[in-house]
């Protein structure tokens, strides 16, 4: 009896020690996250309901100011429109490319060429972008050579497409890699069986490939959404702090408010943006789960 209880005691001590050790692995990181993210995020959340000067409680006034602010509306509209255009475009184009590259000789090398832009620092190609998209630039040279008129890319609403193109350029190869990995999870025997049953390639794509890609499509969409916020880099690099109106993004607005010390507006806008991002992701997830059940 004594022997047993002692062993149990020792085991209990061991488990306890292990518990402590387990937490030691996570603790440094968790503390950092607490200090640099969680704690100040809570502070911002509270700050969004206070006035910047004096810090008195103002309820939803800051939110009202932000939502009626013309610059915020413009930036939110542009960012939203950019996402609505770019993400579906990116997902479709990269899926087509992934399917195409699977079928051609040297597909791996071609895929590397498409992936390379993701490794290229945005600042390294800023001169190339300026050269391509300037009113007197190479793209207009090609267009004029083809008999089409030149476009004032940076000075008119066409600047939106500069954003779209640089986002696609940067993220296309990366998304192709994701799709290729997802396509690789479908076992080839399924396709062989379908072929035996007389399914043509379109049918096997529609009935086998697409349903199998659904789970991956969710994660790819979420990642593309996250990366779409980073397009500010290209916008800022080619057009600076005050770009053409269609290129004005949420980050530009933040920077301006920062310069003018409008901290209450920034706090309210941060809360709004995080709500929108989290709601979007939750909705995407929900849509997917529903389809899975149906």
């Amino acid at each position, binding site marked *: 009896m004594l022997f047993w209880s002692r062993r149990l005691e020792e085991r209990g001590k061991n488990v306890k020690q*292990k518990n402590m*050790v*387990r937490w*030691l*692995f*996570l603790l*440094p*990181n*968790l503390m*950092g*996250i607490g*200090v*640099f993210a969680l704690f*100040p995020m809570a*502070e*911002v959340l509270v700050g969004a309901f206070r006035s910047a000067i004096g810090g008195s409680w103002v309820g939803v006034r800051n939110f009202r100011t932000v939502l009626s602010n013309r610059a915020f509306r413009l930036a939110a509209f542009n960012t939203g429109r950019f996402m609505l255009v770019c993400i579906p475009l990116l997902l479709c184009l990269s899926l087509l490319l992934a399917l195409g590259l699977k079928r*051609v000789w040297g597909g791996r090398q*071609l895929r590397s*060429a498409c*992936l390379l*832009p993701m*490794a*290229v*620092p945005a*600042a*390294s*190609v*800023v*001169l*190339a*972008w*300026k*050269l*391509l998209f*300037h009113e*007197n*630039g*190479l793209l*207009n040279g090609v267009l004029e050579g083809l008999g089409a008129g030149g476009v004032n890319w940076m000075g008119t609403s066409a600047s939106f497409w500069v954003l779209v193109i640089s986002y696609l350029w940067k993220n296309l*190869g990366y998304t192709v890699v*994701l*799709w*290729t990995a*997802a396509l690789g*999870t479908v076992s080839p025997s399924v396709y062989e069986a379908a072929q035996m049953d007389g399914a043509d390639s379109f049918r096997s794509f529609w009935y086998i490939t697409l349903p199998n890609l659904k789970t*991956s499509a969710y*994660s790819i969409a979420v*990642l593309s959404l996250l990366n779409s*916020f980073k397009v*500010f*880099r290209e916008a*800022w*690099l080619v057009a*600076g702090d005050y770009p053409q109106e269609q290129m004005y993004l949420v*980050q530009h607005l*933040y920077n301006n408010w920062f310069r003018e010390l409008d901290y209450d507006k920034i706090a309210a806008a*941060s809360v709004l*943006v*995080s709500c929108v991002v989290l709601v979007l*992701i939750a909705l995407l997830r929900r849509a997917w789960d529903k389809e899975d059940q149906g």
Partner: protein
Amino acid sequence: MKRKLLWFLMGAFALIMLLPIWIAVTGAFSSQWELTENLRPVLGNGQGLAKWTLLPQSPTLKSLVQVLLDSPEFFTMFWNSVTITAGILLGQFAVAVPAAWGLAKLHLPGKLGNLYMVLMLLPFQVLMYPEYLVLKSLGLLNTLWAVILPGVFSAYPVFLLTRFFGAIPEEILEAARLDGAGEWQIFRYIALPLGLPGLLSVGILSFLDAWNLIEQPMTFLKNRALWPLSLFLPETTLTDAGLGFAAALLMLIPALLLFGLCQDALEQGLALPGGK
């Protein structure tokens, strides 16, 4: 026939993708005179259209030599970029790797894993102001720490590494525990070696991210002497186009080298969050 057409289309597309990089590379080997001639309509106020030749007409290393040998500003900024990147990578190795191991294998509450996932999903636009408040109260604004520390505590590497570590079979750990290995020893002698491919993948992604930071230094560093290269390049004008291209190439080279050497690891890291 159909296959050839497809191949041709894909090839042409790949070439278009490489075009901006080609311009960046050839620009660094062109003479200032040639760049001035070609770029005047874009960077200056010349008439007509800008030109670019597939290869520089008079290739020269002059701009590169000039940047490397007699531009102290370039060295400062290059060094700032190196410090920021190295700081972030070392810090992540010290805190993110053990944290990921803890989350993957040490039965910590699953809610913590979810916390990291949500944090990973928040864009800089949401984290910027909170980070600013902390950095300000810690007195770190306008020091390189202001860029390094938030990078170190990014949730993304933890999330990715947790997935990599999760794939290590539980039996190995059980066997090691039966042999009397402590948790720390298991981490040191089993997790790190077996997780090496994952560490490499995540390291590359973190490197590319840190090397390319723009928003963070722009917001947290007012002192231009602390700026990394990425903030300096867009200020290039016609008269220093050669220097601009050369500096851009020198910034590009480490990224390209890494890409060339570790493309497989990079692709593995990229594909990971897309999996099921």
